[in-house]
């Protein structure tokens, strides 16, 4: 059991506040991903949970027990480092069994558990190797083996896949997902890669500027972003943002038409309309909501990315399913799907009907 709770937690380096108002409840067995651009404080938050960084204020509990002042070794949490942090002078077996060695577990018990973990991770034949004789993927597995061997109450991952190449990254991502299913342990995972976040997480925590922007399931964040930052951070390609004003019964795109969006009308307040590229249909010129000239067309096979210059509005990106026969400098019409449109007030907060 490991219910992790952070209440009003903040962190200061001298006078600089790097994290504030962190309130987070993590259920037992939940997979939480902390995501955000570099410098947003996500790694600091993870290190505070690990005990590697003191917590300036607020309370951090595991299963209701205050942990702020507990040393890392007594928190019963395992962590996988971005650099893997394998001990260079110990072979794979000793690396994995080190935590049990420190706890003076019986040698027989230790060997058995190391062997078990090695089997699961496919490392059986590498136990005598030193880390420098391993490939990146193998090192990554050893780092994970070192974490699971102790059967801790929670796992922390600090950008564990960022040093791997693209193919291995996908493979290890699946491995981590399987691990979570099998162990059903609480996991907290830091990444700046939204694909990892969307694929792995039960819930995602989006951090920016030391503040939690939104907490929710991947689908929540995709469909109902709380603000413009989340909307643009989650989803690829990035959501189009068009300057607009709120009008009687909808929203008027600056330099373009007015869309009927019941419930969010106003009296001319400045706002932004957000539409994801995949929520725009290509139509014949003159039809649809906007008309523009295709600038660049990228054929990806499964999809086509079209960068359209809309006179008076600006560039709009469209992602169409399949292979769409649009040529550069060709005129196209764009239809924005109303049910997937987002409106953000001038301060960035999402407006809902």
């Amino acid at each position, binding site marked *: *059991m490991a219910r992790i709770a952070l209440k009003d937690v903040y962190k200061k380096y001298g006078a600089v506040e790097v994290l504030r108002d962190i309130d987070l409840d993590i259920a037992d067995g939940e997979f939480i991903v902390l995501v955000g651009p570099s410098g947003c404080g996500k790694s600091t938050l993870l290190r505070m949970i690990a005990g590697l960084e*003191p917590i300036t204020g607020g309370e951090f509990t595991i299963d209701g027990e205050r942990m702020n*002042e*507990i040393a890392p070794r*007594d928190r*019963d949490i395992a962590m996988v480092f971005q650099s893997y942090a394998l001990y260079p002078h110990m072979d794979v077996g000793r690396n994995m069994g080190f935590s049990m060695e420190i*706890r003076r577990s019986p040698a027989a018990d230790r060997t058995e558990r190391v062997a078990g973990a090695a089997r699961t991770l496919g490392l059986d034949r590498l136990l005598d190797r030193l880390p420098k004789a391993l490939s990146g993927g193998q090192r990554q597995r050893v780092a994970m083996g070192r974490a699971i061997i102790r*059967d801790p*109450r929670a796992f922390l991952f600090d950008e564990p896949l960022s040093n791997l190449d693209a193919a291995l990254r996908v493979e290890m991502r699946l491995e981590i997902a399987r691990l979570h299913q099998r162990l059903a342990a609480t996991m907290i995972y830091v990444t700046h890669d939204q694909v990892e976040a969307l694929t792995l997480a039960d819930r995602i925590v989006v951090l920016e500027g030391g503040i939690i922007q939104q907490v929710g399931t991947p689908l929540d964040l995709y469909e109902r972003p709380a603000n413009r930052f989340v909307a643009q951070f989650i989803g690829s390609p990035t959501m189009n943002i068009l300057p607009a004003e709120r009008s009687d019964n909808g929203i008027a795109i600056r330099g373009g038409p007015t869309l009927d969006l019941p419930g969010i009308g106003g009296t001319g307040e400045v706002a932004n309309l957000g539409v994801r590229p995949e929520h725009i249909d290509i139509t014949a010129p003159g039809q649809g909501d906007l008309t523009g000239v295709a600038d660049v067309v990228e054929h990806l096979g499964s999809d086509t990315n079209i960068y359209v210059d809309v006179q008076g509005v600006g560039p709009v990106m469209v992602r169409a399913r399949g292979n769409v026969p649009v040529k550069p400098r060709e005129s196209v019409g764009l239809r924005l799907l109303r049910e997937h449109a987002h409106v953000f007030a001038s301060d960035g907060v999402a407006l809902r009907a």
Partner: protein
Amino acid sequence: MTLRAQHAPLPGKKGRAEGTFYWRYVMEPWLYLSPAIILIGLVMLVPLAIGISYSFQSIELLRPMNTGWVGFENYGDLVEDRKFWKSLRNTLWWTFGSVGFQFALGLGLALLLNTQFYGKRLIQPLVFLPWAVPTFLSALTWAWLFNPVIGPLPHWLAALGVLSEPYNILGDPDLAMWGPIAANVWYGVPFFAITLLAALQSIPGELYEAAEIDGATGWQCFTKITLPFLAPMIAITVMLRTIWIANFADLIFVMTGGGPANSTQILSSYIFTTAFRKLDFGYASTIAVALLFFLLIFAAILLAIRRKLVRI
């Protein structure tokens, strides 16, 4: 928690006490530092303070009756002391003579060692070897080399016409200083070469490749890339080395003892002979304070120059 009973508990007591974490976080570095701080404090800083206080006292071990506070009397003596002013001039000569040759030869060696050549693995340790020779031994060796009875140098110098006849220059007040300087250059070139070589090796190779593609000649590469990159390192090394050499009395003490007729007496050897031979600790400390004062001025000037250069 019962699920976890399979784990043996961590040995040692658990840090559960409220506040322990922070206390440890604040105190831990000092724990690791305390032996160093205590030793440096007791063996260097406390004696330093005592030493400064000595300069206002009369402490002559040979005249124990004559002990007590004398105010600025020692400093008054110092200003009148012709030997002191002579030592100061000699210190300048000694320091800049040594540093100049060490730097020029050291830079040359570093540039050579930064290229590829046959037998480098053997040659590099050989040219660095003098640096490992204990200073007292460097001093003795060079003193012997200058001795016409067993050393070749006077004969060579006479053959070259530098000396009228092969005699020991360490006994000639006009030339004696060149003896310790030669020993110091021999001993110090490897140090400069090592430091500058390390700096040279930190210059990214792409810079030279880019310059070569742009058509720069070897000399242009040296003046436009190498020197600007080395400049900060050179400034720091030369400054620290100058101070170090100004304080460095071993060679002179062993080779000439400051003689003949004080022609090689520098401030630091004067301090040592005053303390060691005359056991006049008060006056020795006064000279030491004066030396410290000059070094501080030198450091301040250099730092000011450096700040000006960095701004450009």
